[in-house]
């Protein structure tokens, strides 16, 4: 299969690049080993669109974070994505931390972050009454926001697909292909070869390994686990925005936030590990998160916890993003080490990559604007958020919208069917695209129903349906046959 460009990895970075490049007349292939999107760090993160004061002026991160923040405020309408423009607070508990806020303020101003200011602890508690009484000051960033990260990644890749990009899931890149001059010719995968003169490495925690195949060992990815608690949506309004601890060398510390859907959430830890795929939570990690959450919000209602999860971020030794076009082999682009504020930065990185391709790889790829580019994309209707007239209209036109599948999040069969139409093949894919199963019963009610619908619509037996692809089958055979064959 011949393409103009291959993007390895369809996390937020890969998807944003795919969408940005779909503004041009290019044949784009996006390859991801997962069965549903988002899967890696783009699924399990704080879902924060950062203000941009955290990053030292002059770093690559600082440039993209502020620009990315602006772009998301625009993209939310174009791509029909939930963005809660709630602002964020960095909380100082003592004079030393208060002094640190001054540094962050200066940094924010240098980075061009609009509206950042330091407020008193009392003023902070006026906005966030559950915040600790021991907080003496806060750095407020009004442009910080919280995004529905499941929706955002799917929106980006869907928009790219609308404009001609092709997505290949369950496609694991196993090596690079080189031409006679030792330049990039494509990639080999478990699904065969994909050929293109340009390969973009947005491989997340695996980006270091992929770069090494191109002979680039200039950076190393340090998989860094972050663990989280997610609480019931009845906690909505417990806090309204995003509370940071004062950042340290180890990272931004434990934060407490309200997700775009209204769940209270706390995390992450930052634990370096060898295995890039180990997303298990640990007693120590969860204890650390709880301690950190209670420091910020003493009444943190942990009894309303509905799930714990962990993501693995692609940290680097430099702590900065590793974005480069290799001189040798020609045609290989690294977009690596995209850790926090990666989600925020992704749209800005994508624009930058388009520029890099024009400037540095013009001999291999030609970026001719696609006049038919459609910037907008509509989300699957969100029944929960519609008014009664809209709901009635939807149900009248399609009775599947008059059948609830997920009772916790009020997701209708119509939404599940639409997700399947848009490519969902696993229970987790349906969850990512509709939120069925994200609520307080964590799929206890809707999982059997989603499995039934997937089986019926895809015309495959129930025991072939997986939770998240691979060997994650939910059922192991029919009851009576199981006993008789024993």
């Amino acid at each position: 299969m011949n393409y103009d460009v291959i993007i390895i990895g369809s996390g937020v970075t890969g998807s944003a690049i795919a969408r940005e490049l779909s503004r041009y007349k290019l044949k784009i292939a996006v390859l991801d080993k997962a069965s549903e999107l988002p899967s890696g760090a783009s699924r399990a993160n704080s879902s924060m669109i950062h203000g941009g004061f955290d990053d030292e002026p002059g770093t690559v991160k600082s440039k993209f974070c502020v620009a990315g923040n602006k772009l998301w405020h625009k993209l939310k309408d174009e791509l029909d994505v939930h963005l809660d423009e709630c602002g964020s607070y960095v909380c100082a508990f003592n004079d030393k931390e208060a002094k640190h806020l001054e540094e962050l303020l200066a940094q924010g101003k240098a980075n061009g972050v609009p509206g950042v200011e330091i407020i008193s602890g009392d003023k902070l508690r006026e906005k966030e009454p559950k915040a600790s009484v021991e907080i003496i000051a806060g750095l407020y960033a009004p442009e910080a926001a919280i995004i529905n990260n499941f929706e955002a990644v799917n929106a980006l890749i869907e928009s790219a697909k609308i404009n001609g990009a092709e997505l290949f899931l369950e496609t694991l890149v196993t090596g690079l292909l080189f031409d006679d001059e030792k330049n990039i010719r494509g990639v080999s995968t478990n699904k065969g070869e994909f050929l293109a003169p340009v390969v973009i490495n947005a491989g997340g925690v695996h980006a270091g390994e992929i770069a090494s195949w191109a002979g680039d060992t200039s950076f190393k990815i340090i998989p860094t686990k972050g663990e989280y608690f997610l609480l019931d949506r009845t906690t909505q309004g417990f806090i309204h925005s995003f509370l940071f601890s004062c950042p340290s060398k180890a990272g931004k510390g434990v934060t407490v936030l309200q997700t775009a859907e209204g769940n209270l959430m706390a995390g992450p830890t930052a634990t370096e590990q060898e295995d890039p795929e180990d997303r298990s939570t640990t007693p120590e990690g969860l204890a650390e998160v709880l301690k950190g959450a209670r420091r910020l919000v003493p009444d943190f209602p942990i009894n309303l916890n509905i799930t714990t999860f962990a993501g693995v971020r692609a940290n680097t030794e430099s702590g900065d993003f590793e974005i480069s076009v290799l001189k040798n082999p020609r045609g290989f682009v690294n977009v690596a080490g995209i850790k926090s504020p990666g989600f925020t930065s992704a749209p800005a990185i994508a624009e930058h990559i388009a520029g890099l391709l024009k400037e540095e790889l013009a001999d291999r790829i030609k970026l001719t604007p696609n006049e038919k580019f459609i910037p907008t994309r509509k989300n699957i209707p969100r029944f929960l958020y519609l008014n009664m007239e809209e709901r009635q209209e939807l149900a009248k036109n399609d009775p599947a919208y008059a059948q609830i599948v997920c009772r916790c999040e009020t997701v209708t069969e119509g939404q599940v069917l639409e997700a399947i139409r848009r490519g969902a093949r696993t229970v987790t894919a349906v969850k990512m695209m509709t939120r069925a199963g994200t609520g307080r019963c964590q799929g206890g009610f809707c999982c059997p129903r989603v499995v039934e619908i997937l089986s019926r619509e895809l015309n495959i037996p129930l025991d072939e349906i997986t939770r998240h692809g691979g060997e994650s089958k939910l059922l192991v055979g029919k009851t009576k046959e199981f006993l008789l064959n024993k």
Partner: protein
Amino acid sequence: MSENLIEKKFICVSCPLGCGLTVVINDKQEVLSVTGNSCPRGAAYAKTEVKDPRRVFASTVRVKGGRLPVCPIRSKTPAPKNKLKEIAKAVAALNVKAPVKIGQVLIHNVCGTDVDIVASRDLS
């Protein structure tokens, strides 16, 4: 207590109370006494449990053309405990056609136990 008397302990499963029963039997497997029960059913249970332990078997059978792919069934009366495995296999091998009526006998005298397997719901 003479040395050829044996004491056995059971939890009565006749009702949700779950009384702890103590049964004294002689070497002929005859029940000499039952204690710990709150009602006559407990005493009766203890006696059967010593000689011929029985349980109600409840499972499903495969159904063709029904609203559900399986229909719940039960043994109409308690079946010998040592035959349950065999009964499970006999029930698993069965295929019935919808509609099924509650109480409908699906297997007469299952595995020679004199116990019938009946449907425990209507299934259209």
